[in-house]
């Protein structure tokens, strides 16, 4: 089956961020495919390139990236939610004249339409909330 995930919880604040990752791993292990993981609301912080969690806590952005590389899944961050909260790629940093950018490699910023599209083309859409 084709799954997509909506991640609405931030790592280190709400367990939903970690639950989503664990679900994705289980999903792929069973041979299903994941079309897209969409990060929305506070969930966008799960795509930070600058997160440096303690050694006994998982670095979710890095794990998502590795999972995406191994299984060709699409990691999309809601651009409107991200930009207002301070998560930028190089383009947005230029557009808003900010001194840097902090979107983790392997993620891309895009519109909320990518959530609707994911729900349309996937068999199941699962939300992990906060």
């Amino acid at each position, binding site marked *: 089956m084709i799954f997509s995930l909506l991640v609405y919880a931030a790592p280190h604040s709400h367990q939903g961020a970690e639950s989503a990752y664990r679900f994705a791993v289980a999903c792929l292990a069973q041979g299903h495919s994941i079309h897209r993981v969409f990060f929305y609301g506070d969930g966008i912080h799960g795509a930070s390139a600058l997160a440096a969690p303690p050694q006994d806590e998982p670095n979710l952005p890095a794990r998502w990236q590795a999972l995406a590389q191994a299984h060709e899944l699409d990691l999309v961050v809601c651009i409107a939610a991200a930009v207002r909260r301070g998560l930028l790629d190089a383009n947005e940093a230029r557009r808003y004249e900010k001194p840097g950018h902090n979107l983790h490699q392997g993620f891309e910023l895009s519109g909320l339409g990518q959530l*609707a599209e994911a729900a*349309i*083309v996937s068999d199941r859409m699962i939300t992990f909330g906060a």
Partner: protein
Amino acid sequence: MSTSKRFLVISRRPPYGSSHARDALDTALTTAVFEQPVSMLFLDDGVYQLLQAQQPAGIQQKNLGATLSALPMYDIDQLYVCDSALRSRGLSLDDCLLPVQLLDGNAIAQLIRNHDVVLSF
């Protein structure tokens, strides 16, 4: 994307205190722009979003009620409210800023079965 799915957006948080209500609304609007049929269901404190006379300028936020009023212009006219959520708050349809349909528990379960994708906020 030739296929079409019936979307239901559930909104159960009050406006302004957190971004849930705004995010639910933006999701519904965007889905409608993608030409998918979208219904909205207001539960619990989500019914407070429908109150008239919201004036959030003093707390530096956009008027959510004004955006809600525009839903029919985006062809989102299937708007449902849990009637016990409304009644237990001492509110009625007259207090709502746009036309909505009241649903009881059985009708809510039925509504869910009639939709393909349910997104809740």
